């Protein structure tokens, strides 16, 4: 089993969720994060004082999938999250040793 993490632009969340649903993904965990990267931040002004903010709002998706689904999940995210502009984000894939569904105590692929 694999865990796919995707850092995306917040306004793309609904679109990505729908493209994942479309390929049969039934579970996603979403976290609001702040990203620091090549995309440059913005400037805020308060009473004349200027603050450069480097951290931009991003959304992180975590999706546990069976090994054979990884490629299609990555492809779905890539397609739906892309704007082509800097800051579109990253996808990371990791190996998971075990999955448990708390409600049923199922393990492994069944539990996803």
């Amino acid at each position, binding site marked *: 089993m694999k865990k796919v993490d995707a850092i995306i632009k917040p*306004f793309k969340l*609904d679109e990505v969720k729908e493209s994942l649903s479309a390929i049969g993904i039934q579970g996603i965990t979403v976290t609001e994060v702040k990203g620091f990267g090549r995309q440059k931040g*913005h*400037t*805020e*002004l*308060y009473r*004349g*004082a*200027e*603050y*450069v*903010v*480097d951290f931009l709002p991003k959304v992180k998706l975590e999706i546990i999938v069976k090994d054979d689904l990884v490629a299609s999940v990555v492809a779905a995210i890539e397609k739906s999250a892309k704007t082509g502009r800097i800051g579109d984000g990253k996808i990371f894939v990791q190996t998971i040793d075990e999955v448990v569904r708390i409600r049923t105590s199922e393990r492994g692929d069944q539990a996803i």
Partner: protein
Amino acid sequence: MRMTWQSSMNPLRAAGWLAVAGVLVFVDSAWAEEAASTLDTGDTAWILMSSAVVLLMTPALALFYAGMARSKNVLGTMMHSFFLMGLISVQWAVIGYTMAFGSDVGSFVGGFDYAFLAGVGGEPNPDLAETIPHSAFMAFQMMFAIITTALISGGFAERMRFSAFVIFSLLWATLVYAPVCHWVWGGGWIGSMGALDFAGGTVVHINSGVAALACAIVIGPRLGYPKEPMVPHNLTLTVIGAGLLWFGWFGFNAGSALASDGAAANAFVATHLAAATATLTWCLAEYVARGKASVLGAASGAVAGLVAITPGAGFVGPMSAIAIGAVVGPLCYYAVGLKQTLGYDDSLDAFGVHGVGGTWGALATGIFASAAVGGTDGLLYGNPGQMWPQVVSIVATASYSFAMTFAILKIVDALVGLRVADQDEITGLDLSQHGEVGYNL
């Protein structure tokens, strides 16, 4: 984050202001002639305090609206109200007041007698209000000009360029608000034909509501509307706003008696009961349609009730006020749904509540007015003829407001562009237009 500061003080600019000041002082001198006073301290206390609470309605509206906007537009939405406390006040002092209440020119607009508030001092002006200082009357009316212009922002919230907003507001207050105010209250043709509008059903609510509709249509829907969810970001602000609006509306309506007497008290009671009833009936409409009454519904109903009773507050009795409020709750509940059917994006329902509620209020005044309360009978008291001036005032105000707003928008669009860039809309007005964010919790 990094912080910097660039000092760029310009002494010439300060000097320029002082020069301007010199000229203005000259105007102030004209303002001291006095007449024998008939001033009443109780009436004055009531109107001064009413003016203060009506001023408070504008920050209240900022809260009411901003709570319904998305988090990234909270400040931009507030600015649409707050900034006008600056802009329209100065406009009113310079030109707006005299265009509304100066000596009548062709039943259409006021002359320039009171430009720069010349002659508007501490003595009563018996033509306008016998027992309170002329300056108090002017201040009271100023607060109406501010909030009316601010109300429109519900129609273009979350997407208008700030510079466009500033120019639009200035033109609108001058070319739409001032004349319509003159028509109804300043000696113009609507007042003369006998239309009843105690505190602004046409002048304030139909006028701003219809303008908001024009704005929503011309500027177009928000990016993603209606596919993307655009839910209120902080309803506690909306509730605070609604509470303060209700409070302020006592000054708005009961203050419009321009005296501290039985008429004011009756307007106070009518105002309160209509708001109360509409709170209930909007919730009831929600309950019937969906099975749940909501806090946003209660707050919206309260405002709808306050809107509806505005033109009739001094003309109808308390049970009529209840009837007026009872109707407006469900009416506006359904009216705010129209935008989804018809496809415009009246983002914060300025037309759905103020346009529709104000129209009902103007009609209802013709229906429920009672000579025993305010000197004129309406339809239910055997005077169907009162409906005619009411209908004319509605149609005239709505048509004028729509056409002029449309024209002003086109001009402003040509000048600076009405709408922010897509990327700025996605980022939000707070950061893109104002360089700040609402929350760092």
